């Protein structure tokens, strides 16, 4: 319940909306992330399965990120189990 408590989010990006000033989508992802959190880092950048990345954010940071241009969604990750 702490506002500072971070959790992992999977961030889907609209690759077609990448600003022309970026020549690499990873830099765009990182720039978007840094605009809402100085400390957050990319856990993974995804290329084939989705366009986007995963990172650790507070709920407030996640909400801010979700409002940025080019962000399709910011969804908390889920835990899976072996069958």
């Amino acid at each position, binding site marked *: 319940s702490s506002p500072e408590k971070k959790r992992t989010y999977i961030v889907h990006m609209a690759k077609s909306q990448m600003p022309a000033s970026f020549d690499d989508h990873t830099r765009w992802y990182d720039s978007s992330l840094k605009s809402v959190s100085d400390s957050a880092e990319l856990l993974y950048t995804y*290329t084939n399965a989705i366009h986007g990345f995963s990172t650790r954010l507070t709920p407030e940071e996640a909400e801010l990120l979700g409002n940025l241009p080019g962000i399709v969604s910011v969804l908390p990750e889920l835990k899976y189990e072996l069958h």
Partner: protein
Amino acid sequence: TTRTPEFLGLEKSADLFPESDSVSEVIVGVLDTGVWPESKSFDHTGLGPVPSNWRGECEFGTNFSSSNCNRKLIGARYFSRGYEAVLGPIDESTESKSPRDDDGHGTHTASTAAGSAVSGASLFGYASGKARGMATRARVAVYKVCWIGGCFSSDILAAIDKAIGDNVNVLSMSLGGGTSDYYRDSVAIGAFAAAEKGILVSCSAGNAGPSPYSLSNVAPWITTVGAGTLDRDFPAYVSLGNGLNISGVSLYRGDAFPNKMLPFVYAGNASNATNGNLCMIDTLIPEKVSGKIVLCDRGVSARVQKGAVVKAAGGAGMVLANTAANGEELVADAHLLPATAVGQKSGDVIKSYLFSDPNPTATILFEGTKVGIEPSPVVAAFSSRGPNSITPEILKPDVIAPGVNIIAGWSGSLGPTGLSTDMRRVGFNIISGTSMSCPHVSGLAALLKAAHPQWSPAALRSALMTTAYTQYKNGQSIQDVASGRPSTPFDHGAGHVDPAAALNPGLVYDLDVADYLGFLCALNYTSAQINMVARRNFTCDPAKKYSLTDLNYPSFSVPLQTAQSDSGSTVLKYSRTLTNVGSPGTYKVSVNLKSEAVKVSVEPKSLSFSELNEKKSYTVTFTANLMPSNTVSFGHIEWSEGTHVVRSPIAISWT
């Protein structure tokens, strides 16, 4: 795995399957707990160079390096950033920060799908024989995503991302995460991208059966696999002091008590805990169980853990009784003390004896391995069941495959029970779950892919589904062990896989990305939600009618509302397109549906195919009367030209 190759007809039909060269071009990616590379199942003898299109790697880490890969195990990666972000740095003294499997599950699933043949395999002599994966010549690439603390979707998505880039042909995922919309489910999302690249994704249906609506991994671009039994058993009888012999199963090997009757006690009467009957840790009173056989009820804690608890309290043996949750399903375990598992009815008989005799006694007789058990297969009680809670119009599971008491490769890090107190080490272990049935289908898909490299993942799945069987050789329907009655398409999907028949299905129901995008439109997904699943800007055409019933799926699920129509009847139309993958021929339709409440008509009633890959469409009209909630009807639609039978299950349900 032993026995399943024979049970599936792979040995008898070996001539039908593709040449080894083509199979060795197929790469099966397995997302799981990693791999024990020293397992004989990953011996690469006889395999040529790795496929030239392979882009994967053998990653370095704890007790693992590139030298652990070979021409069989061609790739091994691990994904722990998401896990460590949540739970902190991996303690490398307890789990390997590398592709190495410290659990056994990943080695088991990978070797089941595509392990090399290993002669003389067994678990303590049980299930002995030549163990082999389904596709012995296919290559294996493992992606470790599950750790002691679980499997996190950021890691799973990263693994799928890499597997696609590495150029795997089949992805096997024996894991799940409950039921969430496709756009929230990383497995569904990753599987969509994989399917688009021509990768067949096979997933376990889950072990939440026999409850309805208990399925995982229900996206229509995933092949969802439930579990059935083999014709093999490991009998271990309980002989009671009153002369009764009770059937059970066990994989115990060690000192038993031949011909010696021991005092017998119910755990619930040897504990001060309210749940003492469950033999949870530290709940048994040693003075009351010492030197005795203890009857424990199944549930809450691991079955083998209960054995360890009895042993720690000084018990001489254990009888593990199913409760209503498991019914008569018997799952064998390599217990640490003489123990056997019995069904609920047998458990009740034993309890009746225990509660009525002032000095009850028993012994356990271990009989080893028996094959030829009938009926088989039966649907496992634990196998998750439909209806599909996300999209009721898509019938799931798709098929069932062997998933009970499956022997396959194991990790050298832990014993067969997985308990920390189990110091035994085995090359092969026998375990159960839809985790075990999934890689069977993954390996079979690899064989089909080698035989038909041009077929899409949907076509490969269609071949497996439309040729699956739902009856035993004597004509009786496949049974559900949970109910003791014939299983339904909500339990077994299209039926039990028959790989030899799947090689030559005659016709297939094909699907491509455009179909799946139309499916997402039919779900009324927003553009953002479609983008999350399909990685593209896609706008549904407002002028186009999208219908869930028109997805070209090889099965029919017809969900009806009890208050759908004032007139008391509902008319639903389903359209399908068949693609000829065999010889020219005229196929005629037949419908089998045992229901007074529903009428089914198919138009046209015959389809003539003159060319390979020719497509013909048909429409099925279901006219259903109003029925009480929870009413169900089942049947099938068959197309046949006399040689091939292309069968689709029908499941109708009123809610």
